[in-house]
């Protein structure tokens, strides 16, 4: 376990944790204080018995009793300080770690997310940080306390009697062995119960989410059986824990009693021979019962270190990932909106080009539509304009400047991007629109919405602009969500707009609303529409047809239709249907 890399991991973590020096100092002092105070009570007891009580020194009993009280008070005080400050220290480190991870996720480029599941990332932020805190901070500090008090007990015992100490310690190796043997097994068995419970909850989750299907296909009995099996597994897992714990605790207890018995047997013999005093034997009996806790602590800490290291590794794995966006370069305040693709190639995975030598000039203020089959590379072109990715080869120019030289953030501020799927932040609809431009007032938002023709739709929601986005999650259709996204884009007053038409079905009325809002937003701006429904191509200056990563046709819609090529075929095959939709919309 103590290989170089894990040691380096812990070192790095501790270096970062030590930033909270003041609190750490209090923690260390209270740990030492608490360990020392714990030792004193039995020691004082032995002296009191031997030198005051048995000789019958009645009057001097008060000061020694006060001393005993003092030792116990100190024990309480230090324990309280230790409890509090250890946790505060740990929580501080934990908080910073979580913030760092979140920050990192925000700064990562889109490549970063490709091979990571959301659940896994969230688990790193929540669970792994907790494990690290429990084991590496609370655990290490607690373990430190345990080691100090263990060695303190041994030192104090040695002071009293060397031989008796050695005899008393004979049970320590037994306890260590027991703790080593059962510690890991107990923890694994316990973890197993958590997994079994998680399994139960996923069965419930699935059976609730899929209830319609379950009922429709008469699967109730089947799901019930599955649930019963998962539930029975839990029982088994818990019984295993019960067996391990049931053996572990009594064994530790007996080992601890063994020390007491040895002290009574050997100490009694020594006292009988007059070699040690009665007070010392009493003190040893008290000490002998104090090994159990600290030994258990130290061993279990050692044992859980492995999982803490794994958690730490997973955390640093994210923090050290190099897929970060840089925010360097030129700040642009305003763009004319001239965009140029110069022999742009792009591949998400090495060797699989999605764009192959795109050359495209978009003049300021013009409107273009990109059409083509799914997977042709349309959305990738939008991704490149947004600088979510940079071209693998070739370059993209904005007003003649290479995109790589422009600060991403300042560039994105000038582009209004309306994705297919609108993401709504937790908060109200108002907040969700305003987030695009925090300087805008609520009145500005309403004005923009009115201009786009979205206002009335929002006012129909249960609480108008104050409706919470969470509530609307189930309430709003894809198209309606896109309306909010359009308002967002408009509020930014961007120089360039990119519109990714929603793919899934939108009812005709909303579709028309979305289309109207889109056209409003496009007015006077360089506009790029990724079109799935070709009806919108009627409103653009130029249509770009992409297929398999290449531009196969480009030009005004009339020209392309006259030409009778790829676009013509696409258009005629769809328009027959879309005119039908128009009719149904009127009906």
């Amino acid at each position, binding site marked *: 376990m103590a290989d170089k890399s894990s040691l380096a991991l812990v070192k790095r973590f501790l270096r970062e944790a030590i930033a909270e020096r003041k609190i750490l100092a209090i923690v260390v002092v209270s740990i030492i204080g608490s360990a020392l105070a714990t030792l004193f009570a039995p020691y004082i*007891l032995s002296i009191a018995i031997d030198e005051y*009580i*048995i000789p019958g020194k*009645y009057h001097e009993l008060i000061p020694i009793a006060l001393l*005993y*009280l003092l030792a*116990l008070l100190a*024990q*309480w005080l230090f*324990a*309280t300080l230790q409890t*509090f400050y250890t*946790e*505060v220290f740990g*929580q501080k480190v934990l*908080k910073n770690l979580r913030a760092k991870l979140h920050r990192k*996720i*925000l700064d990562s480029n889109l490549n970063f*997310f490709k091979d990571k599941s959301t659940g896994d990332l969230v688990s790193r932020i*929540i669970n792994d940080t907790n494990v690290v805190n429990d084991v590496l901070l609370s655990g290490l500090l607690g373990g430190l306390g345990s080691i100090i008090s263990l060695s303190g007990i041994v030192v104090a015992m040695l002071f009293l009697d060397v031989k008796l100490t050695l005899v008393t310690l004979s049970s320590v190796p037994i306890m260590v062995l027991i703790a080593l043997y059962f510690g890991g097994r107990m923890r694994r068995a316990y973890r197993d119960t958590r997994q079994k419970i998680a399994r139960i909850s996923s069965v*419930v*989750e699935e*059976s*609730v989410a899929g209830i*319609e*299907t*379950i*009922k*429709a*296909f008469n699967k109730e009995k089947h799901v*019930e059986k599955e*649930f019963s099996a998962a*539930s029975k597994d*839990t029982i088994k897992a818990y019984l295993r824990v019960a*067996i391990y714990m*049931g053996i572990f*605790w*009594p064994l530790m*207890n007996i080992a601890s009693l063994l020390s007491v*018995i040895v002290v009574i047997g050997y100490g*009694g*013999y020594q006292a*009988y021979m007059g070699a040690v005093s*009665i007070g010392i034997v009493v003190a040893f009996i*008290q000490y002998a019962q104090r090994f159990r806790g600290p030994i258990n602590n130290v061993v279990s800490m050692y044992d859980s270190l492995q999982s803490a290291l794994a958690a730490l590794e997973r955390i640093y794995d994210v923090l050290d990932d190099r897929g970060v*966006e840089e925010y360097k370069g030129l700040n642009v305040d305003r763009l004319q909106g001239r965009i140029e693709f110069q022999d742009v190639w792009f591949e998400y995975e090495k060797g699989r080009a999605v764009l192959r030598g795109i050359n495209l000039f978009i003049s300021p203020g013009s409107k273009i539509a990109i059409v083509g089959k*799914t997977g042709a590379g349309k959305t990738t072109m939008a991704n490149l304009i947004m600088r*979510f990715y940079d071209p693998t080869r070739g370059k993209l120019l904005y007003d003649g400047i290479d995109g790589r030289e422009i600060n991403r953030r300042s560039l*994105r501020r000038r582009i209004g991007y309306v*994705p297919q799927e609108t*993401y709504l*932040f*937790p908060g109200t609809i108002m907040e969700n629109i305003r*987030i695009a431009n925090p300087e805008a007032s609520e009145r500005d938002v309403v004005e923009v919405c009115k201009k786009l023709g979205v206002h009335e739709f929002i006012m129909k929601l249960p609480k108008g602009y104050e409706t919470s986005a969470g509530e609307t999650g189930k309430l709003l259709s894809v198209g309606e969500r896109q309306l909010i996204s359009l308002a967002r884009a408009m509020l*930014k007053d961007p120089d360039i707009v990119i519109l990714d038409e929603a793919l*899934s*079905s939108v009812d005709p009325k909303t579709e028309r609303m979305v289309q109207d809002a889109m056209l409003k937003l496009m007015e006077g701006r360089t506009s790029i529409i990724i079109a799935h429904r070709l009806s919108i191509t009627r409103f653009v200056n130029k249509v770009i047809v992409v297929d398999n990563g290449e531009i196969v046709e480009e030009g005004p819609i009339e020209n392309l239709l006259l030409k009778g090529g790829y676009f013509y075929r696409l258009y005629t095959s769809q328009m027959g249907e879309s005119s*039908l*939709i128009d009719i*149904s919309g009127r009906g």
Partner: protein
Amino acid sequence: MASLKQLVRLLRYLRSHALHFLLGLGIVVLMAYTSGVIPVLIKNAIDEGIISGKYHQAIYYALLILLVGVLNGIFSFSGRYLLIKSSQYAVYHLRMDAFKAIQRQEMVFFDKTFSGQLISRITNDTERITRFLSFRIRMFVYSIFLIVVSLYYMLSMNLLLTGVAFFTIGIVVTLNTTYAMKVRPIYDRIRQQTGVIASFATGTIAGIKTIKSLSVEKNVHGNFSKENNELYTLNVSATKITAIYGNAPFLILGIAMSAMFYYGGIAIIRDVLTVGELVAFLTYMLTMTWPLRALGFTIGDIQRSLAAASRLFEVIDSSPHSVDVPDAIELKNPKGKVEFRDVWLTYHTGKTVLKGLNLKIDPGERILITGPPGSGKSSILKILARFYAPEKGEVLLDGVDVRKIKSANLRSIVAYVPQEPFIFNRSIRENIALAKPDATMEEIIEAARRAKIHEFISSLPEGYDTVVGEKGVTLSGGERQRIGLARALLLNPRVLLLDDPVSNLDAQTERKLVEDLQHILRNKTAIIVSQRLSLAKLADRVIHMEDGKIVEEKKNSY
């Protein structure tokens, strides 16, 4: 008392394990006795052996301590095992009851209830009850008897010191109970806030593209920090309570032990107490530290555990006893004639979606229903599939009210394909064979072919064994729809209900599927809901709905 009733009802779930449970409790009493007697044995070893110099007495007591220790261990093991086992089985039955009750619920219930809540009922609440039955009750019995045994032996040694001990126990239990009651709600809030942070982070990841395109990283991170700080503050206040109330018993015990030390010392000098007895008193106080805490926590926890139980009972009680009416029948030879007679339907949101619907569909007839969103067209399918019951009117299948047909029978006749079919986190093969687990591979492939999904499935690296969902392949809306369709086709139903079956398909696939549906729907009664008129060529009749009523109806010329 209400909570007593809950407790009795909970204990009744022990059923065949009740004896184990009682036996376990009996053993715990024995365990408490063995724990309580050890300090006395140590005392005897000191007084009768070491001090009086009778070495063999010391050895005798030492061996006796070992014996009692071993017995204690055996009692501890068997008591724990029996109680955990019996309470695990009790909770198993409870959990099954709750789960079955959930399954029996009407769809309305699921419209109103968050799935997170149900999961929490079945996992967290049952966990809490298990802990209560196996751990809390065990510690309660153990602590009470340990205190009784300890006080009994103390009383035989010294009255005054016993008084001190008794008084101390009272204060410490009170403190621990207060501690438990104060710290629990904060831990609940910590758990909740952790959930908030988790869902916030999930949102950041899900919305990363939006965040980046709006350049609002700072803003988002600011909000995250706010929640993060809130969690920190909650944790610190929980720690404060732990540090103050959780540690206070040590203070009280310290003072009590000092008092014992002093008065005990005096008593020894006056020869009314022995050294061994003083040590025994001090050992008792140490032995009782943790049981006293457990006692406080048990008392503080009873209310919450019973509340958890009553939440589960509520789930069980709120569900209908059976999905079918007592005199439900089976249709032996279904023809597929459907009739809606003046059907009204109102959802729990208060929206009335069907307002006196009248519609007759002949066996083998195919109907397309169109209309704007919210016009009630999907509700027609759901009400025929009996997911909802009409508040007025009747829905008849072959002349029988669907509510009078056994649900298993009804669902083998009527197959419903929702707009977004639910795909289980399992292999595609299992997903298609959902309603017919014994279907052969040929049948499955045939159904997939007809649903125009076979090629896609074959293109996957593991074909039909590909696992879908979380850890597997994710499917697009269109792919899910077609798997849902394959699922229904495998069942070969008399009546097929399709909710917008082409909504997520591209034009080409749509055209092909429509062609195939013409074969598929032959000789079946079919009701198709869609926005797209391209489906009209499938139908014998097209119905247009608005506001819960049929506004236009025309025979198809095809």
